[in-house]
Protein backbone atom coordinates (compact mmCIF):
# COMPACT_ATOMS: atom_id res chain seq x y z
CA UNK A 1 0.00 0.00 0.00
CA UNK A 2 2.99 2.30 0.30
CA UNK A 3 2.62 3.07 -3.36
CA UNK A 4 -0.64 4.77 -2.60
CA UNK A 5 0.52 6.62 0.48
CA UNK A 6 0.17 10.34 0.26
CA UNK A 7 2.13 12.74 2.48
CA UNK A 8 -0.89 14.98 2.92
CA UNK A 9 -2.52 14.76 6.35
CA UNK A 10 -6.06 13.46 6.54
CA UNK A 11 -8.69 16.05 5.90
CA UNK A 12 -10.66 17.04 8.95
CA UNK A 13 -14.11 18.33 8.22
CA UNK A 14 -15.69 20.59 10.75
CA UNK A 15 -19.34 19.95 11.20
CA UNK A 16 -21.99 21.66 13.21
CA UNK A 17 -24.84 19.29 12.73
CA UNK A 18 -27.78 21.18 14.05
CA UNK A 19 -26.88 24.57 12.80
CA UNK A 20 -25.93 23.40 9.33
CA UNK A 21 -28.80 21.05 8.68
CA UNK A 22 -31.36 23.58 7.54
CA UNK A 23 -28.78 25.49 5.57
CA UNK A 24 -27.89 22.60 3.34
CA UNK A 25 -31.40 21.42 3.01
CA UNK A 26 -32.14 24.85 1.65
CA UNK A 27 -29.32 24.73 -0.90
CA UNK A 28 -30.46 21.38 -2.25
CA UNK A 29 -34.06 22.53 -2.17
CA UNK A 30 -33.07 25.47 -4.36
CA UNK A 31 -31.15 23.21 -6.75
CA UNK A 32 -34.09 20.87 -6.95
CA UNK A 33 -36.45 23.66 -7.95
CA UNK A 34 -33.92 25.14 -10.31
CA UNK A 35 -33.85 21.76 -12.02
CA UNK A 36 -37.63 21.69 -12.32
CA UNK A 37 -37.92 25.23 -13.70
CA UNK A 38 -34.66 25.61 -15.66
CA UNK A 39 -33.13 22.23 -16.22
CA UNK A 40 -31.02 23.53 -19.10
CA UNK A 41 -28.72 25.44 -16.73
CA UNK A 42 -27.39 22.11 -15.44
CA UNK A 43 -26.13 21.38 -18.94
CA UNK A 44 -24.06 24.57 -19.10
CA UNK A 45 -20.33 24.04 -19.44
CA UNK A 46 -17.76 26.51 -18.15
CA UNK A 47 -14.86 27.59 -20.34
CA UNK A 48 -12.68 25.00 -18.57
CA UNK A 49 -15.17 22.32 -19.69
CA UNK A 50 -16.52 21.78 -16.21
CA UNK A 51 -20.13 20.89 -15.66
CA UNK A 52 -21.68 21.57 -12.26
CA UNK A 53 -20.88 18.06 -11.07
CA UNK A 54 -17.17 18.62 -11.73
CA UNK A 55 -17.23 21.78 -9.61
CA UNK A 56 -18.31 19.59 -6.70
CA UNK A 57 -16.14 16.54 -7.43
CA UNK A 58 -12.92 18.54 -7.53
CA UNK A 59 -13.45 19.33 -3.84
CA UNK A 60 -12.63 16.89 -1.05
CA UNK A 61 -15.75 15.24 0.29
CA UNK A 62 -16.64 15.14 3.94
CA UNK A 63 -15.64 12.20 6.13
CA UNK A 64 -18.73 12.62 8.25
CA UNK A 65 -20.92 9.54 7.80
CA UNK A 66 -24.19 11.42 7.94
CA UNK A 67 -22.81 14.05 5.63
CA UNK A 68 -21.97 11.41 3.06
CA UNK A 69 -25.68 10.73 2.72
CA UNK A 70 -26.28 14.34 1.83
CA UNK A 71 -23.29 14.33 -0.52
CA UNK A 72 -24.74 11.36 -2.36
CA UNK A 73 -28.10 13.10 -2.60
CA UNK A 74 -26.39 16.07 -4.20
CA UNK A 75 -24.61 13.83 -6.70
CA UNK A 76 -27.86 12.07 -7.47
CA UNK A 77 -29.54 15.38 -8.20
CA UNK A 78 -26.73 16.70 -10.41
CA UNK A 79 -26.40 13.48 -12.39
CA UNK A 80 -30.12 13.15 -12.93
CA UNK A 81 -30.24 16.74 -14.19
CA UNK A 82 -27.44 16.17 -16.70
CA UNK A 83 -26.18 12.55 -16.97
CA UNK A 84 -23.89 13.28 -19.91
CA UNK A 85 -21.49 15.03 -17.56
CA UNK A 86 -20.31 11.58 -16.40
CA UNK A 87 -18.79 10.94 -19.85
CA UNK A 88 -16.89 14.21 -20.16
CA UNK A 89 -13.19 14.51 -19.43
CA UNK A 90 -12.02 17.66 -17.67
CA UNK A 91 -8.26 18.05 -17.70
CA UNK A 92 -8.23 14.46 -19.00
CA UNK A 93 -10.03 13.21 -15.91
CA UNK A 94 -13.44 11.59 -15.86
CA UNK A 95 -15.94 12.32 -13.13
CA UNK A 96 -15.25 8.83 -11.74
CA UNK A 97 -11.56 9.65 -11.34
CA UNK A 98 -12.42 12.81 -9.44
CA UNK A 99 -15.00 11.06 -7.27
CA UNK A 100 -12.70 8.21 -6.22
CA UNK A 101 -9.79 10.56 -5.66
CA UNK A 102 -11.76 12.89 -3.40
CA UNK A 103 -13.92 10.37 -1.60
CA UNK A 104 -17.34 11.14 -3.09
CA UNK A 105 -19.89 8.34 -2.61
CA UNK A 106 -21.22 8.14 -6.14
CA UNK A 107 -19.12 5.61 -8.08
CA UNK A 108 -22.15 3.41 -8.74
CA UNK A 109 -24.19 6.33 -10.03
CA UNK A 110 -21.41 7.32 -12.40
CA UNK A 111 -20.81 3.78 -13.60
CA UNK A 112 -24.51 3.28 -14.26
CA UNK A 113 -24.27 6.06 -16.82
CA UNK A 114 -20.81 5.36 -18.19
CA UNK A 115 -19.59 1.84 -17.28
CA UNK A 116 -16.56 2.16 -19.56
CA UNK A 117 -15.05 4.56 -17.06
CA UNK A 118 -14.16 1.57 -14.90
CA UNK A 119 -11.35 0.67 -17.27
CA UNK A 120 -10.11 4.20 -17.95
CA UNK A 121 -6.78 5.15 -16.47
CA UNK A 122 -6.31 8.64 -15.08
CA UNK A 123 -3.58 10.01 -17.36
CA UNK A 124 -2.17 12.16 -14.59
CA UNK A 125 -1.79 9.55 -11.86
CA UNK A 126 -1.70 6.52 -14.21
CA UNK A 127 -4.19 4.83 -11.89
CA UNK A 128 -7.40 2.95 -12.46
CA UNK A 129 -10.37 4.24 -10.46
CA UNK A 130 -10.02 1.41 -7.92
CA UNK A 131 -6.43 2.43 -7.31
CA UNK A 132 -7.42 6.04 -6.71
CA UNK A 133 -10.03 4.85 -4.23
CA UNK A 134 -7.41 2.71 -2.50
CA UNK A 135 -5.08 5.66 -2.13
CA UNK A 136 -7.92 7.69 -0.68
CA UNK A 137 -8.59 4.85 1.80
CA UNK A 138 -4.92 4.59 2.68
CA UNK A 139 -4.89 8.25 3.66
CA UNK A 140 -8.08 7.83 5.70
CA UNK A 141 -9.66 10.51 3.59
CA UNK A 142 -12.97 8.76 3.50
CA UNK A 143 -14.63 6.00 5.51
CA UNK A 144 -16.19 4.63 2.34
CA UNK A 145 -13.09 4.43 0.18
CA UNK A 146 -12.19 0.91 1.20
CA UNK A 147 -15.65 -0.34 0.28
CA UNK A 148 -15.48 1.57 -2.98
CA UNK A 149 -12.09 0.02 -3.74
CA UNK A 150 -13.47 -3.51 -3.32
CA UNK A 151 -16.58 -2.76 -5.34
CA UNK A 152 -14.62 -1.28 -8.22
CA UNK A 153 -12.11 -4.10 -8.14
CA UNK A 154 -14.80 -6.73 -8.07
CA UNK A 155 -16.56 -5.09 -11.03
CA UNK A 156 -13.56 -5.84 -13.22
CA UNK A 157 -10.78 -7.87 -11.56
CA UNK A 158 -8.89 -8.05 -14.84
CA UNK A 159 -7.60 -4.54 -14.24
CA UNK A 160 -5.75 -5.82 -11.17
CA UNK A 161 -4.56 -8.89 -13.03
CA UNK A 162 -3.21 -6.63 -15.70
CA UNK A 163 -1.18 -4.77 -13.13
CA UNK A 164 0.29 -7.96 -11.77
CA UNK A 165 1.23 -9.23 -15.21
Amino acid sequence: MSRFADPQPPTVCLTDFWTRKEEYQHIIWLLHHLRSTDRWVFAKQASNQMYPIHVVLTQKCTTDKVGLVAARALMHLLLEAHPEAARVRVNDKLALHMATENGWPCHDLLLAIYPEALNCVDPHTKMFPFQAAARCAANSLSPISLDVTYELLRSNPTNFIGLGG
Partner: protein
Amino acid sequence: MTTATTSLRNEEILGMKSQSFLLANNTELHLYLDTLLLPTNPCNCKEEEAHRATIDWASLEALLHRLRPTPKDASPAELYTSPEDDPMGRLFLTRILSSGAPLTVVATALSVFPYSLDKNPASFLAATKNSSGNDDVLKLMAYHVAGREEEQCPYPWILSNNITAEDARRVLEAFPEGLLLPSPYLAGESLLDYLLFSKCVIERRTFDMNLWNKFKLVLGATGCLENPGQNILPVHTLLKRALSRQGTCARLGLFGSAPECLVSLILNRQPFV
Protein backbone atom coordinates in the same frame (compact mmCIF):
# COMPACT_ATOMS: atom_id res chain seq x y z
CA MET B 1 -39.71 48.54 6.75
CA THR B 2 -41.26 48.84 10.20
CA THR B 3 -38.13 50.44 11.58
CA ALA B 4 -37.99 52.89 8.72
CA THR B 5 -41.63 53.79 9.18
CA THR B 6 -41.23 54.35 12.88
CA SER B 7 -38.19 56.41 12.28
CA LEU B 8 -40.04 58.40 9.68
CA ARG B 9 -42.74 59.18 12.19
CA ASN B 10 -40.12 60.34 14.63
CA GLU B 11 -38.84 62.67 11.99
CA GLU B 12 -42.26 64.02 11.19
CA ILE B 13 -41.89 66.99 13.50
CA LEU B 14 -38.51 67.76 12.08
CA GLY B 15 -39.97 67.54 8.60
CA MET B 16 -42.67 70.03 9.49
CA LYS B 17 -40.03 72.34 10.85
CA SER B 18 -38.12 71.93 7.64
CA GLN B 19 -41.15 72.86 5.65
CA SER B 20 -41.66 75.96 7.76
CA PHE B 21 -38.03 76.82 7.26
CA LEU B 22 -38.38 76.50 3.54
CA LEU B 23 -41.54 78.51 3.54
CA ALA B 24 -39.95 81.30 5.51
CA ASN B 25 -36.61 81.39 3.80
CA ASN B 26 -37.16 79.99 0.36
CA THR B 27 -40.58 81.19 -0.58
CA GLU B 28 -39.73 81.17 -4.21
CA LEU B 29 -38.74 77.50 -4.20
CA HIS B 30 -41.72 76.55 -2.08
CA LEU B 31 -44.12 78.33 -4.39
CA TYR B 32 -42.47 76.66 -7.33
CA LEU B 33 -42.97 73.27 -5.80
CA ASP B 34 -46.55 74.07 -4.93
CA THR B 35 -47.53 75.30 -8.32
CA LEU B 36 -45.55 73.00 -10.53
CA LEU B 37 -44.86 69.80 -8.68
CA LEU B 38 -47.05 69.15 -5.70
CA PRO B 39 -50.59 69.82 -6.93
CA THR B 40 -50.29 67.37 -9.73
CA ASN B 41 -53.04 64.80 -9.77
CA PRO B 42 -53.10 63.83 -13.39
CA CYS B 43 -56.10 61.81 -14.46
CA ASN B 44 -54.47 60.22 -17.43
CA CYS B 45 -51.19 59.90 -19.24
CA LYS B 46 -51.82 62.83 -21.52
CA GLU B 47 -52.42 65.15 -18.60
CA GLU B 48 -49.33 63.83 -16.92
CA GLU B 49 -47.21 64.43 -19.98
CA ALA B 50 -48.67 67.90 -20.39
CA HIS B 51 -47.85 68.64 -16.78
CA ARG B 52 -44.28 67.45 -17.22
CA ALA B 53 -43.86 69.71 -20.19
CA THR B 54 -44.75 72.72 -18.06
CA ILE B 55 -41.98 72.07 -15.54
CA ASP B 56 -39.06 74.42 -15.99
CA TRP B 57 -36.30 72.13 -14.77
CA ALA B 58 -33.61 74.76 -15.34
CA SER B 59 -35.37 77.18 -13.01
CA LEU B 60 -35.86 74.49 -10.41
CA GLU B 61 -32.20 73.57 -10.56
CA ALA B 62 -31.22 77.21 -10.16
CA LEU B 63 -33.45 77.44 -7.11
CA LEU B 64 -31.97 74.30 -5.64
CA HIS B 65 -28.51 75.78 -6.01
CA ARG B 66 -29.56 78.49 -3.58
CA LEU B 67 -29.95 75.89 -0.87
CA ARG B 68 -26.76 74.92 0.84
CA PRO B 69 -26.48 72.02 3.27
CA THR B 70 -26.55 73.43 6.75
CA PRO B 71 -23.61 72.74 9.05
CA LYS B 72 -23.84 69.85 11.47
CA ASP B 73 -23.97 72.13 14.48
CA ALA B 74 -27.00 74.01 13.18
CA SER B 75 -30.03 74.17 15.41
CA PRO B 76 -32.92 71.81 14.57
CA ALA B 77 -35.01 74.77 13.45
CA GLU B 78 -32.44 75.53 10.80
CA LEU B 79 -32.17 72.04 9.45
CA TYR B 80 -33.94 71.20 6.25
CA THR B 81 -31.96 68.04 5.66
CA SER B 82 -31.83 65.26 8.23
CA PRO B 83 -29.11 62.63 8.54
CA GLU B 84 -31.86 60.17 9.42
CA ASP B 85 -34.48 59.45 6.80
CA ASP B 86 -34.63 63.09 5.74
CA PRO B 87 -38.41 63.27 5.21
CA MET B 88 -38.27 66.55 3.37
CA GLY B 89 -35.61 65.30 1.02
CA ARG B 90 -37.43 62.00 0.48
CA LEU B 91 -40.64 63.72 -0.46
CA PHE B 92 -38.92 66.19 -2.71
CA LEU B 93 -36.77 63.63 -4.47
CA THR B 94 -39.61 61.19 -5.05
CA ARG B 95 -41.75 63.99 -6.37
CA ILE B 96 -39.27 65.24 -8.93
CA LEU B 97 -38.40 61.68 -9.98
CA SER B 98 -42.08 60.96 -10.49
CA SER B 99 -42.17 63.98 -12.74
CA GLY B 100 -39.29 62.67 -14.83
CA ALA B 101 -36.56 65.00 -13.58
CA PRO B 102 -33.42 65.14 -15.73
CA LEU B 103 -30.09 63.86 -14.47
CA THR B 104 -28.64 67.27 -13.56
CA VAL B 105 -31.63 68.18 -11.41
CA VAL B 106 -31.50 64.86 -9.57
CA ALA B 107 -27.77 65.32 -8.98
CA THR B 108 -28.33 68.80 -7.58
CA ALA B 109 -31.17 67.57 -5.39
CA LEU B 110 -28.94 64.82 -3.99
CA SER B 111 -26.24 67.35 -3.17
CA VAL B 112 -28.79 69.34 -1.19
CA PHE B 113 -30.49 66.34 0.40
CA PRO B 114 -27.67 63.81 0.67
CA TYR B 115 -29.55 61.50 3.05
CA SER B 116 -32.78 61.40 1.13
CA LEU B 117 -32.06 58.04 -0.50
CA ASP B 118 -31.39 56.17 2.72
CA LYS B 119 -33.98 53.43 3.20
CA ASN B 120 -35.94 54.98 0.40
CA PRO B 121 -37.06 52.40 -2.16
CA ALA B 122 -39.92 54.69 -3.17
CA SER B 123 -37.52 57.05 -4.93
CA PHE B 124 -35.84 54.20 -6.77
CA LEU B 125 -39.20 52.84 -7.78
CA ALA B 126 -40.24 56.28 -9.03
CA ALA B 127 -37.02 56.43 -11.02
CA THR B 128 -37.60 53.02 -12.60
CA LYS B 129 -41.11 54.00 -13.59
CA ASN B 130 -40.32 57.44 -14.94
CA SER B 131 -36.82 57.52 -16.33
CA SER B 132 -38.17 56.03 -19.57
CA GLY B 133 -35.25 53.90 -20.58
CA ASN B 134 -32.60 56.32 -19.38
CA ASP B 135 -30.75 54.46 -16.66
CA ASP B 136 -28.32 57.28 -15.91
CA VAL B 137 -30.59 58.57 -13.17
CA LEU B 138 -30.82 55.11 -11.58
CA LYS B 139 -27.08 54.73 -11.87
CA LEU B 140 -26.46 58.08 -10.21
CA MET B 141 -28.78 57.18 -7.34
CA ALA B 142 -27.20 53.76 -6.83
CA TYR B 143 -23.68 55.20 -6.84
CA HIS B 144 -24.80 57.87 -4.38
CA VAL B 145 -25.99 55.30 -1.85
CA ALA B 146 -23.22 52.77 -2.44
CA GLY B 147 -20.35 55.21 -2.18
CA ARG B 148 -21.61 57.70 0.39
CA GLU B 149 -20.34 55.88 3.44
CA GLU B 150 -18.77 52.45 3.72
CA GLU B 151 -19.51 50.38 0.67
CA GLN B 152 -22.85 48.68 0.86
CA CYS B 153 -25.44 47.27 -1.48
CA PRO B 154 -27.59 50.21 -2.53
CA TYR B 155 -30.71 48.23 -3.28
CA PRO B 156 -31.39 45.55 -0.63
CA TRP B 157 -35.08 46.44 -0.89
CA ILE B 158 -35.42 44.90 -4.38
CA LEU B 159 -36.32 41.65 -2.59
CA SER B 160 -39.49 43.31 -1.35
CA ASN B 161 -42.77 41.90 -2.63
CA ASN B 162 -43.64 45.33 -3.95
CA ILE B 163 -40.78 45.33 -6.43
CA THR B 164 -41.34 43.31 -9.57
CA ALA B 165 -38.60 41.22 -11.13
CA GLU B 166 -38.61 43.55 -14.12
CA ASP B 167 -38.04 46.63 -11.96
CA ALA B 168 -35.34 44.75 -10.06
CA ARG B 169 -33.65 43.97 -13.36
CA ARG B 170 -33.54 47.64 -14.32
CA VAL B 171 -32.05 48.60 -10.98
CA LEU B 172 -29.41 45.86 -11.25
CA GLU B 173 -28.52 46.87 -14.79
CA ALA B 174 -27.98 50.45 -13.69
CA PHE B 175 -25.39 49.50 -11.08
CA PRO B 176 -24.54 45.78 -11.19
CA GLU B 177 -21.48 46.17 -8.97
CA GLY B 178 -23.77 46.80 -6.02
CA LEU B 179 -24.88 43.20 -6.21
CA LEU B 180 -21.66 41.89 -4.66
CA LEU B 181 -21.70 44.38 -1.79
CA PRO B 182 -23.05 43.40 1.63
CA SER B 183 -25.89 45.31 3.20
CA PRO B 184 -26.66 45.92 6.87
CA TYR B 185 -30.30 45.38 5.97
CA LEU B 186 -29.51 41.85 4.76
CA ALA B 187 -27.73 40.66 7.89
CA GLY B 188 -24.43 41.82 6.44
CA GLU B 189 -24.77 39.55 3.40
CA SER B 190 -24.92 40.27 -0.29
CA LEU B 191 -28.25 39.74 -2.03
CA LEU B 192 -27.34 36.25 -3.25
CA ASP B 193 -25.82 35.11 0.03
CA TYR B 194 -28.88 36.37 1.84
CA LEU B 195 -31.14 34.25 -0.36
CA LEU B 196 -28.86 31.21 -0.02
CA PHE B 197 -27.79 31.25 3.59
CA SER B 198 -29.81 33.62 5.73
CA LYS B 199 -31.71 32.04 8.56
CA CYS B 200 -34.71 34.20 7.76
CA VAL B 201 -35.07 32.88 4.21
CA ILE B 202 -34.23 29.30 5.14
CA GLU B 203 -36.83 29.16 7.89
CA ARG B 204 -39.57 30.59 5.72
CA ARG B 205 -38.56 28.94 2.47
CA THR B 206 -41.51 30.27 0.55
CA PHE B 207 -40.56 31.63 -2.82
CA ASP B 208 -43.46 33.00 -4.81
CA MET B 209 -42.96 33.42 -8.52
CA ASN B 210 -41.81 37.00 -8.15
CA LEU B 211 -39.13 36.16 -5.58
CA TRP B 212 -38.09 33.07 -7.53
CA ASN B 213 -37.58 35.17 -10.65
CA LYS B 214 -35.57 37.67 -8.66
CA PHE B 215 -33.49 34.86 -7.18
CA LYS B 216 -32.64 33.62 -10.66
CA LEU B 217 -31.88 37.17 -11.75
CA VAL B 218 -29.53 37.72 -8.81
CA LEU B 219 -27.92 34.30 -9.30
CA GLY B 220 -27.25 34.90 -12.98
CA ALA B 221 -26.03 38.44 -12.47
CA THR B 222 -23.68 37.43 -9.65
CA GLY B 223 -22.21 34.72 -11.88
CA CYS B 224 -21.61 37.25 -14.66
CA LEU B 225 -19.90 39.66 -12.28
CA GLU B 226 -17.68 37.00 -10.71
CA ASN B 227 -16.73 35.41 -14.03
CA PRO B 228 -16.74 38.19 -16.60
CA GLY B 229 -16.61 37.04 -20.17
CA GLN B 230 -18.05 33.61 -19.43
CA ASN B 231 -21.45 32.23 -20.19
CA ILE B 232 -24.09 32.53 -17.52
CA LEU B 233 -23.45 29.60 -15.19
CA PRO B 234 -26.03 29.77 -12.41
CA VAL B 235 -25.52 26.27 -11.02
CA HIS B 236 -21.75 26.67 -10.97
CA THR B 237 -22.18 29.95 -9.12
CA LEU B 238 -24.54 28.47 -6.58
CA LEU B 239 -22.36 25.41 -5.92
CA LYS B 240 -19.15 27.42 -5.61
CA ARG B 241 -20.90 29.74 -3.19
CA ALA B 242 -22.10 26.85 -1.07
CA LEU B 243 -18.78 24.99 -1.19
CA SER B 244 -16.76 28.02 -0.16
CA ARG B 245 -19.14 29.21 2.50
CA GLN B 246 -16.75 28.52 5.37
CA GLY B 247 -13.63 27.16 3.90
CA THR B 248 -13.50 24.30 1.54
CA CYS B 249 -13.59 21.18 3.67
CA ALA B 250 -15.73 22.68 6.34
CA ARG B 251 -18.09 23.46 3.56
CA LEU B 252 -18.37 19.91 2.65
CA GLY B 253 -18.66 19.38 6.30
CA LEU B 254 -21.74 21.28 5.62
CA PHE B 255 -22.87 18.60 3.38
CA GLY B 256 -21.43 16.25 5.89
CA SER B 257 -23.68 17.63 8.53
CA ALA B 258 -26.85 17.17 6.60
CA PRO B 259 -29.12 14.44 7.88
CA GLU B 260 -30.83 11.68 6.05
CA CYS B 261 -33.99 13.71 5.79
CA LEU B 262 -32.12 15.63 3.15
CA VAL B 263 -32.34 12.60 0.94
CA SER B 264 -36.01 12.16 1.57
CA LEU B 265 -36.46 15.81 0.80
CA ILE B 266 -35.00 15.29 -2.63
CA LEU B 267 -36.61 11.99 -3.37
CA ASN B 268 -40.01 13.12 -2.20
CA ARG B 269 -39.76 16.23 -4.37
CA GLN B 270 -41.62 18.58 -2.18
CA PRO B 271 -43.85 20.90 -4.16
CA PHE B 272 -42.59 24.30 -5.07
CA VAL B 273 -44.51 26.89 -3.07
